[in-house]
C-alpha cells in the first residue's frame, strides 16, 4: 500500500492564516473586556467619589483629629 503525496508547501502560511486572525480577535476581545470591565469602573469610582467631595470639610475633620503638625485643632 503506497502513500499518497501529501501537501508539502505553505504549511506555516496555512496555519498562520487560520490562527492569526483568531489570535487578533481574542486579543482585541481581551483589551475591550479589560477596558470596560476594569478601567471604566475604576474611573467611574473615582469620579463618583470626587463628585460631592468637600475638601474643606475633610481637612477640618483631620485637623480636629490632631493628625497635622503644621496646624493644631481649633480648640488649642
Amino acid at each position: 500500500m503506497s502513500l499518497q503525496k501529501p501537501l508539502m508547501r505553505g504549511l506555516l502560511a496555512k496555519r498562520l492564516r487560520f490562527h492569526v486572525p483568531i489570535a487578533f480577535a481574542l486579543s482585541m476581545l481581551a483589551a475591550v473586556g479589560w477596558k470596560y470591565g476594569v478601567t471604566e469602573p475604576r474611573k467611574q469610582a473615582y469620579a463618583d467619589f470626587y463628585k460631592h467631595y468637600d475638601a474643606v470639610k475633610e481637612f477640618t475633620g483631620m485637623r480636629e483629629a490632631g493628625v497635622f503638625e503644621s496646624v493644631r485643632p481649633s480648640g488649642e
Partner: protein
Amino acid sequence: MFRAVFRLSSTGARCLVRSKPSISAPLASRCYSHGRVETDEEFDARWVTYFSKPDIDAWELRKGMNTLIGYDLVPEAKIVDSALRACRRLNDMASAIRILEAVKDKAGPHKEIYPYLIQELQPTLSELGISTPEQLGMDKL
C-alpha cells in the same frame, strides 16, 4: 562559493502577507508588483540543479541545506534525492542522515509527510546505503 551565494540570494522566503496566496500559488516568492513569480516546478528544478553540481563542496552543501530549511515547505523528494547524492560525492554520511532528520522536523505536526518521503526515497537510500534515523534508533530521545 560566492557564485553559489549569489544564486541562492535570488530566492526569497519572505513575502508580505498582504495578498492571500492560494495553496497552489508558488511559495518562497517575493511579492513583486512587477516581474514573474517562480513556479513550484522551477523552484524544485533550481534546487535539484544546485545539489547536482558534480564538484559541489561541503560549504555549498551546508549552505544549500540551511537555506532550503528556511523556506515554508518540506523539500520535494527529488530535491532531497539530489542532496543525498551530493552527500555521497562528499563522502558525508552524517549529513545524509541529518538531512533526513531535518525534513522530518520540517513536516512539524503533519506526520504523514515523512513516511511518504521515505517511501519515495527508498530506492535512493538502498542504492547509496543510507540508513534512516529510525533504523539507527536515533529518532528516540
